[in-house]
């Protein structure tokens, strides 16, 4: 045994069914690469929910506007970590910025990420919070006072004109932001969809399916956070807001489901060279994750719950319970979707003659524990962000302090 070669690989040789190319025994993209599209999907989805308020003037959703932005930011800040931890040479990752290879979809990561973080999200948050932070800084003591002053970049203008400019800026940024959010997650889908060697991935629908599932997961996450945060603060949930978001979630799930069904039927009907091995992949390796977790528990049951919640006139508590159950199932379903794409795409041989096994590490750098930490980290960041940046807008008109 040569130092550094993962111990489990020899064991996996006994778990191959059929024939695989010998080099294929190792599953190269681990659970961390499952976490990555899951997280970016939440970012894109949360941002798109936020933009409903600003671009499409959906007033009911206003109570979750700031929460959506902060959710997007918290997850976006964590998004590069699964990638960095996965690299063989993370210390060389800056090469992607300095000498990007322009024909590579992956080389665009840095630019898409930087643009979305700095050109869209931080800018929108800054304009959204600027006035409130100036007001807050005027009322507070050290250290929050200084944190807020620094965050406003020492601007002090709260005149009506300035606030009007903020609003205009936010609208402009959101209009640019929607295609940017599409780009961010569509591009992640493209990374997989453009691999022609892999029939499970190589599909023109992949970026669009990624995008729709991103919207589903992002909206569901914001509903979840909104319900949890209001409960923790002992506040009353704005049911008009919740019902409205839930109806968006319902439509998003329908579109997502239709797209995935289209993809599935199309593959089955075309029945290309790879169909036999993909059939085996689903029946032998992915049945639980794909059929039970992703489709049944993660999509059909939540869809049924949302339909029931819409059709029957339940009281508020019952609706809350239904929504809450649905969004948790949806999160699990979307995580399974990411798993089935990333891991599923590596469980069959490109010789189309055999299946491999993925044995997840528990404690290693690319193990379950790291993945759980990375999944928990955005919530920690969000808690800090909410402390610094209040999710509720300060009342108009301004207090006397200024």
């Amino acid at each position, binding site marked *: 045994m*040569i130092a550094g070669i993962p111990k489990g690989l020899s064991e996996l040789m006994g778990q191959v069914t059929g024939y695989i190319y010998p080099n294929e025994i190792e599953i190269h993209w681990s659970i961390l690469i499952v976490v990555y599209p899951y997280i970016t999907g939440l970012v894109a989805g949360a941002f798109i929910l936020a933009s409903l308020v600003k671009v499409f003037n959906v007033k009911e959703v206003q109570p979750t506007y700031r929460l959506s932005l902060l959710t997007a930011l918290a997850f976006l800040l964590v998004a590069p970590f699964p990638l960095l931890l996965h690299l063989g040479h993370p210390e060389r990752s800056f090469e992607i910025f300095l000498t990007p290879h322009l024909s590579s979809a*992956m080389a665009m990561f840095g630019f898409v990420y930087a643009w979305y973080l700095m050109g869209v999200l931080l800018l929108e948050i800054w304009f959204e919070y600027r006035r409130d932070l100036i007001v807050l800084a005027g009322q507070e003591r050290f250290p929050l006072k200084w944190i807020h002053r620094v965050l406003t970049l020492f601007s002090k203008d709260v005149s009506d004109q300035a606030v009007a400019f903020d609003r205009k800026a936010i609208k402009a940024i959101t209009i640019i932001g929607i295609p940017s959010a599409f780009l961010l997650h569509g591009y992640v889908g493209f990374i997989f969809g453009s*691999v022609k060697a892999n029939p499970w991935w190589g599909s023109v629908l992949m970026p669009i399916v990624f995008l729709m599932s991103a919207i589903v997961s992002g909206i569901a996450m914001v509903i979840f956070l909104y319900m949890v945060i209001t409960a923790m603060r002992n506040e009353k949930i704005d049911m008009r807001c919740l019902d409205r978001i839930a109806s968006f979630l319902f439509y998003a799930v329908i579109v997502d489901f239709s797209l995935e069904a289209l993809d599935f039927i199309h593959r089955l009907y075309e029945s290309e060279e790879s169909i036999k091995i993909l059939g085996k992949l689903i029946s032998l390796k992915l049945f639980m994750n794909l059929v039970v977790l992703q489709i049944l528990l993660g999509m059909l049951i939540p869809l049924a719950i949302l339909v029931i919640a819409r059709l029957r006139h339940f009281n508020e508590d019952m609706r809350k319970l239904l929504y809450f159950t649905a969004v948790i199932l949806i999160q699990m379903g979307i995580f399974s979707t990411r798993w089935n794409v990333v891991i599923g795409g590596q469980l069959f041989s490109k*010789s189309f*003659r055999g299946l491999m096994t993925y044995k997840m590490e528990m404690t290693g750098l690319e193990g379950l524990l790291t993945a759980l930490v990375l999944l928990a980290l955005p919530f920690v960041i969000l808690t800090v962000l909410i402390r610094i940046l209040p999710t509720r807008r300060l009342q108009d008109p301004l207090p006397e302090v200024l």
Partner: protein
Amino acid sequence: MNKRQFLKGMILFIPAGQLLETLARQAGAAETGKKEPARQDAEPDAGLGDYRPAEHWYGMGIEIDKCIGCNRCAEACKAENDVPAEPFFFRTWVERYRVMHDGEARVECISVNPQQRRADREGGDDRDVLRTFFVPKLCNQCAHPPCVQVCPVGATFSTRDGVVLIDKDRCIGCRYCIQACPYGARYFDHRANIADKCAFCYHRITKDLLPACVEVCPTQARIFGDLRSKASRLVRFQRMNKVGVLKPALNTEPKVYYAQLDGEVR
């Protein structure tokens, strides 16, 4: 903040951005300058002596009917190129195909372990076998390589003599190339944390030597040559045989050509 103040801010912000960009460029130039003292576009063949890459276009021919499945090529390759000894890291390997009477094809990779090899050979009932043959596999050195296309930092690249190489000092170990290769020709070298694969023994062919696998093949099932030279053995091989490549529908334009290629081979 009014419009005037915003614009003022932008006037400061833009030159600051340019300053950062200049600094980054300088840092980048210093870094690449260190590795390549002679700029590539100025003197492309510097350091190669008399060897002129642009004058060659390498490929390999494989005559399937000549392969006896002795696995000497795979062993020689492992020794020559310091490929990990494990039975799942190969730059080249040999597949045994047994097509049965019912049409089913049974495929296996010939083991590097002699005992396992003997056991594989003796197992199974030969009466049901319709035809059987061996297929050596290696990196196809595609003229249109998907691995090169997807590498985010350009660490894997096509040389002008038609070989796909990996810059070990530049590879970040993202493994996108491994995913993109339709032939399973790449593996991850855990000792250096980079992707690796067959390089046609580039250190040998640039000195007019044959790749190790070709050198040791006892039946001359592998033919290495220069497609630019009409006198090369590879051109003769192509003239004398009907040849095929693996997975032509993927448009990777492989430069490993197989004679007597069976439809079952993928």
